[in-house]
């Protein structure tokens, strides 16, 4: 995950650009885990990929973005825990990325 710029547009909003690096992208189980993570937060969270955007707490929306490996996405959260939500989702994407190569570590 590179090229991430954190910017604060307003006190309750947080945005981060990330590149999805794990093999499956946001399909199948990774998508489900992404949605489950987003749901842990109060903040409204949107994911944008290219021209499409959707609710990060909706599995159908996240799947419909069709995010595959190496897609750049933007996570935009607004609400009291916006920053935590973005950080949590970025961490999750990173862990998805780390878990797979753990396979190849030996």
């Amino acid at each position, binding site marked *: 995950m590179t090229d991430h710029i954190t910017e604060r547009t307003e006190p309750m909003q947080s945005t981060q650009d990330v590149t999805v690096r794990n*093999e*499956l992208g946001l*399909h*199948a*189980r990774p998508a*489900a885990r992404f*949605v*489950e993570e987003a749901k842990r937060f109060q903040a409204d969270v949107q994911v944008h990929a290219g021209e499409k955007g*959707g*609710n990060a*707490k*909706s*599995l*159908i*929306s996240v*799947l*419909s973005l*069709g995010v*595959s*490996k190496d897609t750049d996405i933007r996570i935009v959260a607004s609400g009291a825990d916006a920053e935590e939500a973005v950080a949590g989702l970025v961490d999750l994407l990173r862990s*998805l990325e780390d*878990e*797979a*190569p753990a*396979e*190849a570590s*030996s």
Partner: protein
Amino acid sequence: MTLRGVGVSPGRVCAPAFVHMPATDTSGEGRHDDGHADVKERRAALATALEASQAALEELIARTTERLDADAAAIFRAHQLMLDDPELADAIDRHLLDGALLPVAIERASEEMAALLHALPDEYLRERAADVLDVARRLLVRLGYVESLQLPGPGHPPVVLVAHDLAPSDTLALTPEVITGVVTEVGTRTSHAAILARQLGIPAVVGVEGLLAAVTDGHPIAIDGTAGECDPRPSAAKADQYAAATITVEVRRGRARTSDGVDVAVHANTSTPQEVASAVKFGADGVGLYRTEFLFHAGCALDDEEEQAEAYSAAVAAAADRRPMTFRTMDIGGDKPLAALPMDHEVNPFLGVRGVRLSLRRPKLFETQLRALVRVASAGGGIRVMVPMVSGLDELEGVKQILAGIPDADHVALGTMIEVPSAAVMIDEVLQEVDFVSVGTNDLTQYMLATDRTNARLEHLYDEVHPGVLRVLDAIVAAGQRQGKPVGLCGEVAADLRAVPLLVGMGFRSLSVAPPLVPHVKRHLSELSLAPAEELAAAVRAARTTAAVNALLSTFAEQEMS
């Protein structure tokens, strides 16, 4: 009139057809009056239905993890997230506010959401559209707008289930006392319906073209899961003959003995202590294959030696009277991944990191599993440990190195599955390094024939009795006899009663099948004599095509029956 299909679970049966049709639309009452006065009432009814559906799914997931595989459970987990999907909820609410009745709102909203997925280029994601619609169907059933797809449950008179296809959730609901046979229009030997029918020990035929057009609901239908045929208009004589065949086969304890005195052990393939107990009930001589990965799919920690040792002890206890148990170390791979062990996406998971390949990449976890198994063996379990997907001596060496670091590792007998063609070709060398081998014919066939056994379009190519596969099986048995080491067989071919005489004639003396098939195989063996079985094997060795082998097997089976 006889319709042909693929026999996927042996046996004959005749019973009234129970035609299982997919749910249709919300026609009728719900379109004009959904029983609610206003949006507020509809929202409340929806909320109640959502909650009940979630609870039902939770239960289904628990049962699925136990009975099928993690993949099926993962499908239902995605369904749970979809039931709880805020965008779907918003869309339903929007339609309700527009004045739509509840079933119409659910239907329209789910179709809109499904359309989003259906428009995607990726095939996997497009298929998820069907999941959205399935979730909506659950809600409509729950709300009473769509007729529920209840299959006949306990107490219902016996039927033969007739369907276009069965979904994973349908097959889980089958009650074997009531569903005495299954026949479907589509499907393969490895579809959910086929695997479950074999587990339940009920005859099944799949891939019967024109089935639904020919069958009348409630009219007797005769099916022959051995020959792969069904007859929706059986003559009275045939109906009687097939109905008589329905009588349960007597359970036999002790080794099956051919009429001329050759003992053949019939073991069971199992995944849980409950299945082991069921295997004992069906008269199995032991457990030829205990699939340990099911434990991890059910949530046991991969790094918890204590918990694993307890689970293995429970299985050993269920086997009762020290019946021999063969534990297969975790066979996890890209085609059946484990949530706790996420893996890279593989273009070709059947040729990817699975079985021993994964174990050797995660030596700590593998060692934990081996330690737990050695503990059970040391405590008097007397168990055998079998490693899957071994391709040659290098991997065996890796396994042995890990075992060498475990005290008392010599308490377990070490064996390998023979399912990778290179290990089969090097069977002499492999046998020198292990105490026993067991041939996994499903994967061996798939790898030898380069034929994906889950691909329905290749169904005609995938056949365990291909002469090339049989030639390799011959070599494996011969090597075992030369070295005096046990050679077992635990693939689906042992469940094919037509193939049993051939396997015995080839020299196999230990077969392992799904628990309910044990009495069938034992009875078959007791009616067999070695000399004709060996003649059959000799004739099959001379056969040049799969069709010729199948013709020999069918002729032999008919002669035996007459």
